[in-house]
């Protein structure tokens, strides 16, 4: 049984460690904030220029001068700080953010990532994604294991334009988790009821299987 969006977010949240500074992308990654483990304190960065991003504001506290990188209204916390876009990306590019969790269209077996454009469609732009994957210490990618037509999204090589080359550290799909060890993908976990055969069928990328492959009964 494949993981739901919430379960994927929950699994990704297990990568958070106490004291981490974290950037969460738009979409499912945003949900990760709802599953931060107890006893773990993380600081969320928003690349438009804020550390210590708080939750959505109460309706009477909405402030047009306070939005996140997804342009949603947010709130501040007692530890928050604001800075310019240049300072924000100096922080990102300089390797000061511990973890980024981002969505993807395709991932390749060498860690290449494609998540910003589909040729022929209107290109909206990469925003800060290229900077994040190039600069953040650990990049966790979240995506469905296959496209709507069932074709694999974890590939030998991406055929969509890249966001970054050799940048993925951990890939969490709705079916499995792959860890990139020395740049090589290793299947380390399976969603409940999913077996290694099914992953093999639905994956184009070459990968090894961890001897201690973890089979989830349920997400904890």
């Amino acid at each position: 049984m494949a993981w739901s969006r919430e379960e994927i977010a929950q699994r990704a949240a297990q990568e958070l460690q106490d004291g981490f500074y974290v950037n969460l992308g738009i979409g499912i990654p945003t949900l990760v904030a709802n599953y931060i483990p107890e006893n773990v304190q993380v600081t969320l960065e928003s690349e438009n220029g804020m550390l210590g991003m708080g939750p959505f504001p109460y309706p009477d506290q909405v402030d047009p001068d306070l939005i996140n990188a997804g342009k949603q209204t947010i709130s501040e916390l007692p530890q928050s700080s604001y800075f310019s876009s240049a300072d924000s990306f100096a922080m990102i590019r300089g390797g000061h953010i511990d973890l980024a969790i981002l969505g993807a269209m395709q991932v390749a077996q060498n860690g290449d990532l494609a998540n910003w454009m589909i040729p022929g469609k209107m290109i909206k732009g990469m925003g800060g994604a290229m900077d994040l994957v190039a600069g953040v210490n650990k990049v966790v990618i979240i995506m469905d294991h296959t496209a709507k037509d069932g074709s694999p999204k974890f590939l030998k090589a991406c055929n969509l334009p890249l966001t970054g080359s050799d940048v993925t550290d951990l890939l969490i799909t709705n079916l499995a988790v792959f860890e990139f060890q020395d740049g090589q993908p290793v299947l380390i976990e399976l969603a409940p009821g999913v077996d290694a055969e099914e992953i093999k069928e639905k994956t184009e990328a070459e990968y090894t299987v961890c001897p201690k492959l973890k089979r989830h009964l349920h997400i904890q």
Partner: protein
Amino acid sequence: MNKLKNNATEALEGVLFDGMTIMAGGFGLCGIPEHLVIALRDSGVKDITVISNNCGIDDFGLGILLQTRQIKKMLSSYVGENKTFEKQYMSGELELEFNPQGTLAERCRAGGAGIPGFYTKTGVGTVIAEGKEHKEFDGVTYILETGLVADLSLVKAWKSDDEGNLVYRKTARNFNPVMATAGKVTIAEVEEHVALGDFDPDQIHTPGIYVDSFIVGTDYKKPIEIMTTREYVA
């Protein structure tokens, strides 16, 4: 040297010319120089190259300069929320250069800081790297990006004193401080004009040296693109 101008039109007087390059601060519709953009539209200046992270929405922010076809080229990181943009780009009327957001911010910072080029890992192995110089430092490959300077920078701040010292508010800061440094001429619009000495000199975000003139805007619209709230728990 009185830097305070009566209104946006007066502030723009004498600095506009067709074909010029203009930087405009803001992220989405947050922290954008609303009044200066309207005055820019009313001036009728043509064939502008605009450097700005986004291009507003159809009827607000830089979007209004698309409706009048005053923009020849955009240099941005994301232009998702704009149908007019999409139409003009798809028809070839509008040129577009995408820059990764951090690269764009750093290019402005470099331009203002007299740095003509810097190396970054961002974009290596992607279309962004095509045609750019590659160089290894300690075994890692980086690409050369260049500094950006504009004929005119339009920025939005919260407060200014007579000297043009600026203070920004929350995430409305974004690209404004770096763009303020990278304009041959920089004009700011603010919500509040304070007396000289009202600012703590330790707490000024943009020193007045970067600000040629400023206006005090009124009736700020500040539209919210995505309203997200939580509920009070009883």
